[in-house]
């Protein structure tokens, strides 16, 4: 009994101290945002990696999700004799929840893992030490550009995912479910509020931040050897995915239960 309590206690302490270290790391990162030097080239490279190169996977997942959503809402709505709500529900479903969450999970898979693996490898091969010795702070040179790129690319990717998701629903609804295209678009437009769209962007920003930050944090704190790199990559993706979904819940609670 005592053993169980002790183990639980240890677990809690570990979890809290891990969270504390993460928060400190996040604050340290943010504190660098306005302090020179700025590494523009690193930033643009990161922006291409985080944003531009994520477009295909984000677009495809959003397209299929929007399409499936339309089918489900149609069949679900028919039971209540309200199949005509498809455009409205697809729109808020994508914009409020699915768009941001899909983007968050996709960049956790693509971006967090690659950042963590790259940085962990740099750590293991002493490249991080070499950076420090060459008077360059890893926080500035490696972390800042990537996190900033995440903050900027997040909302843009979400905007893309929202639009393509709605478009996926539109295609299915007009091609197979017999909706009138003009009415569909009109219903979507009229139903969405600017608060929906802003909350969507805000989520994108938060998720971009979490995804890149987790990659950097676990990469820089990687253990030694190839195993260290593997563990850092795995943990970073898990942490990013869980934190993104938790943050999504919190943000939804804040935005939509007032």
């Amino acid at each position: 009994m005592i053993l169980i309590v002790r183990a639980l206690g240890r677990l809690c302490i570990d979890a809290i101290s891990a969270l504390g270290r993460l928060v400190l790391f996040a604050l340290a990162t943010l504190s660098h945002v306005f302090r020179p030097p700025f590494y523009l080239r690193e930033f643009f490279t990161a922006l291409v990696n985080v944003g531009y190169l994520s477009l295909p996977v984000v677009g495809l997942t959003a397209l299929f999700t929007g399409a499936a959503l339309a089918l489900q809402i149609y069949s679900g709505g028919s039971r209540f004799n309200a199949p005509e709500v498809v455009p409205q529900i697809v729109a808020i479903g994508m914009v409020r929840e699915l768009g941001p969450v899909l983007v968050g999970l996709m960049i956790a898979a693509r971006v967090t893992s690659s950042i963590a693996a790259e940085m962990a490898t740099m750590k293991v091969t002493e490249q991080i030490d070499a950076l420090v010795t060459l008077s360059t702070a890893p926080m500035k040179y490696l972390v800042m550009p990537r996190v900033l790129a995440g903050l900027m690319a997040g909302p843009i990717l979400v905007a893309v995912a929202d639009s393509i998701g709605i478009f996926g629903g539109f295609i299915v609804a007009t091609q197979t479910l017999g909706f009138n295209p003009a009415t569909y678009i009109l219903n979507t437009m009229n139903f969405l509020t600017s608060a929906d769209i802003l909350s969507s962007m805000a989520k994108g920003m938060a998720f971009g931040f979490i995804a890149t930050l987790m990659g950097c944090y676990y990469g820089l704190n990687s253990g030694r050897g190839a195993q260290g790199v593997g563990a850092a990559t795995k943990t970073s993706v898990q942490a990013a995915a869980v934190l993104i979904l938790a943050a999504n819940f919190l943000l939804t609670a804040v935005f939509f239960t007032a």
Partner: protein
Amino acid sequence: MITFESIYKSFGSNHVLRGVNLTVERGESLVIIGGSGTGKSVLIKTVLGLVEPDSGRILVDGQDVTQVKRDAFLSRFGMLFQGGALFDSMPVWQNVAFRLQRGALKRPLAEAREVAIEKLRRVGLAPDVADRFPAELSGGMQKRVSLARAIATEPKIIFFDEPTTGLDPIMSGVINELIREIVVEMGVTAMTITHDMTSVHTIADKVAMLHRGTIQWCGRQTDMAQSGDPYVEQFVNGRAEGPIETLR
């Protein structure tokens, strides 16, 4: 010039450094020998702040290294890492000229590149290596690029961590000569870690042996053969029998 005062460092239950006392004079070339995993790399890294000692002090020119301004301090050092530690995301010349492309020592691009090519030539690499990526080079070439990076801004203190490990004897000889030349010609203070007795003979003014977390023996290279220390004797002659346990 560099003074270690009872440095202790543990990683968990692994007590790596247990009271290291050592002094390196200005312009001197000190070589640290000792078995693998005895903490030689860790010792060097404490000077640069890459590893924080649990206790003890390190003075460089009489100044405590924890009290200095980091940027100015680090710009006086060059370091050749054990594995080379070249940035594989950028071509060779940008590696060598890394410091010249950003921060306080920033120079125009063309000039930085020129310096890089000159340093590459200095370590015996042709200019066409400049635009290749580190992963495309052989181990010996990588070590030399790393060496070029370490000397690119003409630092006053240079650390070489196992400069010849993993190289063939001829390339080892080349690197040893190169280090000796650089030390003499640039008048730097150097600390070199090695297992290679040829390196010791070529590079060292003074030799220190690290064993069980302390400096087991320290003296002039010329006195090493008659050190009378059984540990040094065993290491230098590479004998399996002796006071150093071979099962670790």
